[in-house]
């Protein structure tokens, strides 16, 4: 068998010729059919790379072409120049290579989103000049006023100055805190909240100031936001989301026409994944900063409980509120703050009285009524630290 059948098109007309292609001696081939009879050197012909069951095409130098079903002889007759696509074709037909490709795509895809995107965005964030970040922050601040109904604070000036002083004290020890400032805003629609805006601005709502019972809770919340600033979380988060958007858009295309949804869902999932890591980082920063100011990190737990209690009583759908809130509440975060508070007291036992919910009567027997200590409620101060872990104490204090 030294011949195969093919369709022949001469490149000048659309006429389909049924031909037979025969191999002659000396590397020549002959194409014969009704109205066609030509002889060519096989080396001048170009065979397209094999691709699944699609027809193979053999291009002649003058633009004519032959189309034929795949046949292993084709590759022997017309040695293709395209070694790369030959290899790829072999992979495509090879079950193990396909399986390996699936693994490669899934693993690298996952790794890209979990490590690659954060790594690259953080490299870029490190290169962004402070001035650029600050101007971005001013825009965000303007948007809060416009779209979330933020307006001028109703707190009186002395209160603002007092809290501002506490903010400055927290920031004072930091190495790179130029431009850090706290801004108070009245936000009826949003409620108690605090946000870190790119460029060093910490926005605190009047509603949060009203909610918090102790200024050390304010310190705790603000220290957390300063943590976001120090790690430039707002900028890094923006860059990460952009990358996810770009990558996802490259792969979906026009197959679903709902590429917005196809892109938005993974973006949202990844965003919450990334932001969870950022929250933990900011929490750790807050604990350290508070400890350095000789304030127990347990005040952070106390502030969190107040926010929880507020949002729990406010909305009937917890999941939804947690989603809308910029600080998803979590028992883990409160527990971490309590643990950090316990460590702090172990190192500074003299500050035990300065912990949230500290009850001098129960702990030291310094009760207004002497008799209250007669029963087992009186506890030696040395053992008191283990009671730090008792969360119920926090709310009873008010």
């Amino acid at each position, binding site marked *: 068998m030294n011949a195969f059948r093919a369709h022949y098109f001469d490149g000048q007309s659309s006429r389909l010729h049924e031909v037979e292609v025969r191999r002659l001696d000396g590397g020549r081939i002959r194409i014969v059919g009704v109205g066609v009879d030509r002889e060519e050197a096989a080396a001048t012909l170009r065979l397209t790379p094999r691709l699944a069951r699609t027809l193979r095409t053999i291009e002649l130098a003058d633009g004519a072409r032959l189309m034929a*079903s795949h046949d292993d002889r084709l590759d022997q007759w017309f040695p293709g120049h395209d070694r790369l696509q030959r290899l790829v074709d072999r992979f495509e037909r090879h079950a193990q290579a396909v399986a390996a490709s699936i693994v490669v795509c899934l693993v690298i895809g996952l790794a890209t989103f979990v490590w690659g995107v954060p790594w690259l965005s953080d490299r870029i964030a490190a290169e962004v000049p402070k001035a650029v970040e600050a101007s971005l922050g001013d825009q965000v601040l303007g948007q809060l006023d416009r779209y979330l109904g933020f307006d001028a604070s109703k707190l009186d000036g002395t209160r603002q100055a007092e809290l501002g002083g506490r903010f400055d004290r927290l920031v004072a020890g930091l190495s790179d805190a130029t431009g850090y400032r706290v801004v108070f805003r009245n936000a009826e629609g949003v409620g108690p909240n605090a946000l870190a805006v790119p460029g060093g601005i910490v926005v605190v709502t009047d509603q949060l100031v009203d909610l918090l019972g102790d200024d050390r809770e304010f310190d705790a919340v603000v220290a957390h936001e300063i943590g976001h600033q120090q790690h430039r979380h707002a900028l890094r988060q923006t860059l990460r989301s952009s990358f996810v958007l770009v990558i996802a858009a490259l792969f979906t295309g026009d197959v679903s026409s709902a590429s917005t949804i*196809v892109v938005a869902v993974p973006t949202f999932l990844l965003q919450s994944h990334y932001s969870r890591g950022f929250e933990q980082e900011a929490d750790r920063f807050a604990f350290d900063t508070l400890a350095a100011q000789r304030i127990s990190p347990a005040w952070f737990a106390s502030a969190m409980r107040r926010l929880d209690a507020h949002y729990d009583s406010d909305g009937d759908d917890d999941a939804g509120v947690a989603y809308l809130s910029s600080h998803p509440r979590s028992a883990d975060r409160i527990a971490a703050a309590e643990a950090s508070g316990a460590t702090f007291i172990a190192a500074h036992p003299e500050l035990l009285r300065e912990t949230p919910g500290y009850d001098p009567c129960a702990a030291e027997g310094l009760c207004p009524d002497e008799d209250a200590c007669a029963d087992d409620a009186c506890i030696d101060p040395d053992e008191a630290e283990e009671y730090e872990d008792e969360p119920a104490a926090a709310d009873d204090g008010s």
Partner: protein
Amino acid sequence: MHEDVIAALPPLPQPPLPPVPSIRPPRPPQAVEYPFLFDGSAAEYFRIWIVNLALSILSLGLFSAWAKVRSERYFYGNTRLAGVPFEYLARPLPILKGRIIAVTLFAAYVIAGQYSIGLQLGLALLIAVLTPWLIVRGTAFRARYSSWRGLNFRFVPDYGEAYIRFLVLGIPLILTLGILYPWIKGKQKQFMVENHRFGGSWFRFLLRPGQFYPPYLIAWGVISAWMFLMSFLMIGIIMAGVAVGGESRGAPPAWLMLGLPILMYSGYFIVLAFLAAAIANLTYNHVELDGRRFRSTLKGRRLLWIYFSNTIAILASAGLLIPWAKVRLARYRAECLSVFAFDDFNGMRAERGAEVDATAAEVDGLFDIDIGL
């Protein structure tokens, strides 16, 4: 007459011939209907897609140009008309060059948006000014490397006309608050069709641009009614919340905050699917090539279902069902398209076209400027 066509086709062993074309009397008398046939399989394309994707990733994107060529060749090579498949002839290297430029532009655009709205607006403006040029170049590239029966398609570049229809007409569009939109869309389709050639023959467009109004007017009407209903609903719920809660600060329940936009968006999505089907049918049904006519019978309902289930499947499979989604969309599109011809396609002549570089086609693809025929 069609029996002669079939007789002329040699009995190649593997690819099955299309079903015998049926004769439909009401269309142009004696014309034979030749259906488009898409013969690709999801399983087969999955292998090609995943292997090429893996290689593209491992080569940091460099292989993606080869991946594109193989993917296009698969879809072209499995689309047949009168038994003969289409061919995609572009080579990977020019595509790679185009991709590098496109990715750079896109990255600049996205990153610019993070730093300065002004810079991004500037870039957007630049892209807008380049758009007509990109459309012409992209279409010309695709046409030049599309072939059937040994003859090439060609898109004859007419930059002046492209700038009028894709940029300058934007000014009256804004001045008339968008009322001219369907007419401008019609002008654009007309331009895209009439500048295409197959071999020595010109495509002709038998529709006046004004005839694009009915589908758009219906779509606008439905969307407006839907928006009206939704905002009515939303205001009603907020009012009820205020009345019951007695507290202006109380946020509406979260399911509502998420549910209403989803409902709003899905209404939009449904209308878009129906509109896409109507516009494609209207366009194809008025294209003529030397007396041959096209017929497109896309159904909005089917298209909507395909788009919707594709979206769900892609999300649920972490993207692994993208090949399946692409294959079924291609199959449905081919199923709904046919050509009515008096001849057997054997008498058409060639015309030589010039080389067009791939940059414009790639930049277009990335910025999702989808034009179609």
